[in-house]
């Protein structure tokens, strides 16, 4: 039984990371009806930015304060890049056919990926052991400090985001813009600002996800954004794209599912089963688990 609970912890850890990244996809889709394929590469970029901040600016000082500073600085840099991305790749196409924006997103993804390769090189870069390898045992189930941090910080951020969306004026404006941009504009909502905020939040959450990947897995490569982007994208679709709690749920389910398939069936089949699960969910509930049934515009 402790194996089951251990796999649960393993799954929750990666699920939390998937959920953080999936939020970036789902929020942009919610407001702009656009799949931001460059989001995964922003996540990869965040890991590299974080590593550079640590080695060049912080002078490799390892302390709790340093770790927090890295997170804040990286989130700020990546949020800025997120706004830049929106300005350069998506705003000029706001009124263009949707397909143009998707092609632009794919192009942006390639540009960011190759940009990372040009700046940081094609080889694997390795994060230092910033989080000490400490772990606790609860009745045979081992939780390490880094796993605990990933789950805790992700949960905290998700709750904060949920409260922000549900309880603040800006959150209400975001919700309004996601229902109908034109109507929101008529009500005096500055949609351009909403979109900027969405990109800032999405990119910062992705940055935290990217740093967790770096801290947990240590090795980062310029093309890893594709892999994590795909997982997070699947998580967002599973939960119902455009739905914020849905992305969180989708991420967690995906992580758990992955861990249990890898643990009990075979690690090689984990990806295949992930997509089978996605197909099954989409057959049973075409709008995703928490997605609402929206009448198609004709």
């Amino acid at each position, binding site marked *: 039984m402790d194996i089951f609970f251990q796999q649960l912890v393993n799954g929750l850890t990666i699920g939390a990371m998937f959920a953080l990244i999936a939020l970036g996809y789902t929020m942009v889709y919610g407001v702009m009806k656009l799949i931001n394929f460059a989001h995964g590469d922003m996540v990869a970029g965040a890991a590299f930015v974080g590593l550079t901040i640590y080695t060049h600016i912080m002078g490799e000082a390892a302390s709790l304060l340093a770790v927090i500073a890295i997170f804040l600085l990286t989130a700020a840099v990546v949020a800025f890049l997120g706004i830049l991305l929106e300005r350069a790749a998506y705003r000029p196409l706001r009124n263009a056919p949707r397909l143009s924006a998707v092609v632009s997103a794919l192009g942006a993804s390639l540009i960011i990926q190759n940009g990372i390769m040009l700046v940081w090189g094609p080889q694997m870069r390795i994060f230092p052991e910033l989080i000490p390898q400490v772990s606790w045992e609860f009745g045979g189930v081992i939780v390490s400090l880094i796993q605990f941090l990933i789950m805790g910080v992700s949960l905290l951020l998700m709750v904060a985001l949920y409260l922000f969306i549900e309880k603040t004026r800006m959150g209400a404006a975001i919700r309004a813009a996601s229902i109908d941009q034109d109507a929101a504009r008529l009500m005096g909502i500055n949609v351009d600002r909403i979109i900027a905020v969405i990109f800032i939040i999405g990119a910062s959450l992705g940055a935290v996800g990217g740093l967790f990947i770096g801290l947990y897995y240590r*090795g980062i490569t310029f093309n890893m954004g594709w892999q994590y982007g795909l997982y997070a994208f699947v998580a967002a679709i599973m939960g119902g794209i455009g739905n914020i709690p849905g992305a969180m749920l989708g991420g967690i389910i995906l992580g758990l599912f992955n861990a249990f398939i890898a643990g009990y069936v075979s690690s090689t089949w984990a990806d295949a089963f992930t997509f089978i699960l996605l197909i099954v969910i989409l057959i049973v509930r075409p709008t995703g688990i928490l997605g609402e049934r929206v009448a198609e515009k004709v």
Partner: protein
Amino acid sequence: MKQTALLSMFLFIFCCFAGGAQAENTLKIGVQAPITGKYANEGQGIDQAVRLLAEQINAKGGVLGKQIEVVSCDDEGTAMKAAICAKNLVNKGVKMVIGSYTSTCAEAAQATYYRAGVLQTTDGTSDSLTEHGYWTFFRNSFPNSAEGNFAAKYLVKEKKYQRIAILSDFSSYADGLGTAVEKAVKNLNGNIIYRGKIKSGAQNFTPVITQIKSKKPDVLFFSGYFSDGGLIRSQMVGLGLKADFVGGDSNDNPDFLKLAGKSAQGAYIINVPTPELLPYDLAKDFLKAYKAKYNMTPPSIWTLLNVDGMRAFIHAMEQNNSFDTKQASEFLHQMKDYPGITGPISFAKDGNRIGSGYMAYRIEADGSYKIVFK
């Protein structure tokens, strides 16, 4: 009619150019290596070392009066790119190819080189590489079966592990090595309690390690590459799996230490000696030249094994006084103990390098290697 005339004119011009290209007075040597991607530091090492050796030979007047021209192709460590590289290098008219680093890539390319009569030397250790009977193929390292026998002896006879778990990835190298170790352990009546595979590059190995942990092994033998091995070692410790870690030769890379962090301490790695431990003058001179030119040491022994393959090829051509690859191949199959950077070089009929120089190292607290068994 007019079109035919135009076409034949184009063909004529094309032939002139193609003919002109062939008459160039250089010896073209191909490098097929993962210059980008997960194994980039190994691939770059091979490319740099080949270029250094070519420079050294060119400075002494070249091979039989011809200067060496190095043509590199990046296979990214994937079979698909390897097949493309092979076609590319053959089209460019290379006489010999050094590479690739992985068995998968060497295998994907070797038929193309065989059909074109291009000599190939690789450090790939998968046994299947030499089972096709290609006269063009020469292995400059030692096959998995040799490492399997050594590893089994270490696990069963020396360390006396009672419960042995073996983990591989799906590459022809890692799977082949895992199977070789499994077979050799069984021959020594060792007890294998787990044999599994991971997807290379998946990063999250906690589910598999948790499963292995439930089987209570004394040791985990991992036959894949350092980029996964370092993480597996680190996640093993993180999950409280107290078993020893023994890594196959491809874990022998400085990045293994960085990925595993503090958990690297106490891990064992099986490989032929590291470059610094080679006792030969040739090795010391080459390492010195490499450091002077690139301001770093070669990433691993694999770099030097590849250089040895290239040296053997050039030696064969010089001895035959001909660039004919068939003659060179016949010479190489007869050659006995040609002095190499990594020790004497002789090849068996199937292209395997004869001998085995394996050792087991333990990684110490300061990151240095200590030889514990040979």
